[in-house]
């Protein structure tokens, strides 16, 4: 299960090969077995994951599921998640339970995704090795003596170790792209203004962008499609239509 693409998982869920609850449990089980070694998670939201998964199963049953319904994911701990600790990798926010959802979190929730937990990161995103987190360093799944990169190191390690099909990250000066490269996965820093910064703890507001981190361009395209879009609560959000990213995958990248 854990080696399938999002499109494959989505098709399997629709076909009823397994339920969203079973899928969530499979990933939660992998997290239990491997996270101690990798330290990719600050918080594992098991109860929330199962609640989300049951809701996703109901949507699948009712026939109003989208392409991400029932897909488990990890949110970088920089995104505010209502009722869930949002530490930003810092001791200062160790007791901060966010009172609201970031726009990105809300959008992915509406799409029916299942929250597995919050990913470890460099403290306040200020680092490129994930060694500065209050919750300890994240290890690179390919070689635990190596760093996973940062600041979205927990997100990258979680996806690379197949502890989640997809994770969110944020990039100010390479914080999605560099850990994605170091962990051998795919990450996108979207064009500034595409993804709402509302509820995303700021590092440098005129450069910060949230984006997806997954195993392939296809997986990233599907998730970015759900994350992107105009948000009146972000003063630099751009009000232009979001293209169908998944549909553009077959266009050669040469201009």
């Amino acid at each position, binding site marked *: 299960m854990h080696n399938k693409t999002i499109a494959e998982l989505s098709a399997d869920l629709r076909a009823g090969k397994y339920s969203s609850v079973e899928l969530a449990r499979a990933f939660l089980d992998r997290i239990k077995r491997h996270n101690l070694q990798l330290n990719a998670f600050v918080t594992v939201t098991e109860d929330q994951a199962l609640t989300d998964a049951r809701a996703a199963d109901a949507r699948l049953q009712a026939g109003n599921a989208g392409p991400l319904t029932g897909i488990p994911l990890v949110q970088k701990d920089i995104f505010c998640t209502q009722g869930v600790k949002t530490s930003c990798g810092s001791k200062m926010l160790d007791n901060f339970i966010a009172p609201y959802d970031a726009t990105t979190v809300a959008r992915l929730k509406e799409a029916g995704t299942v929250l597995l937990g919050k990913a470890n990161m460099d403290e306040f995103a200020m680092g490129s090795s994930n060694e500065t987190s209050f919750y300890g360093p994240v290890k690179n799944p390919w070689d635990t003596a190596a760093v996973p990169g940062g600041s979205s190191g927990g997100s990258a390690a979680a996806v690379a170790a197949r502890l989640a099909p997809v994770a969110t990250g944020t990039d100010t000066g390479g914080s999605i792209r560099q850990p994605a490269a170091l962990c051998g996965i795919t990450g996108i820093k979207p064009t500034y203004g595409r993804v709402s910064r509302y509820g995303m703890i700021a590092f440098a507001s005129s450069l910060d962008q949230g984006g997806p981190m997954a195993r392939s361009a296809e997986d990233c395209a599907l998730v970015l499609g759900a994350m992107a879009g105009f948000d009146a609560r972000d003063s*630099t959000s*751009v009000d232009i239509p979001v293209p169908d990213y998944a549909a553009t995958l077959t266009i050669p990248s040469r201009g």
Partner: protein
Amino acid sequence: MLLNKSDVEKIAHLARLEVTEADIPLYANNLSNILNLVEQMNVIDTTGVEPMAHPLDASQRLRPDIITETDQRELFQSIAPQVEAGLYLVPKVIE
């Protein structure tokens, strides 16, 4: 620009990184490649090229001057370790 062994040793020392003797040629080569790329970019004539402020030509959006947020003090204070009469209580820091 080519970096030699002593350049790498100096950079490693400044960054407080331990680099083994055997890895020095590798680092010298990689770091030189980065500097060469910068030199390559410096060759390009950029006179008359307008700097790009935003790839989507976005400008600052203004919103109507009306109240959009409501009072959520109770919600926000519900996670505070200590509050009194609507105020946050914090440890005394100035004697």
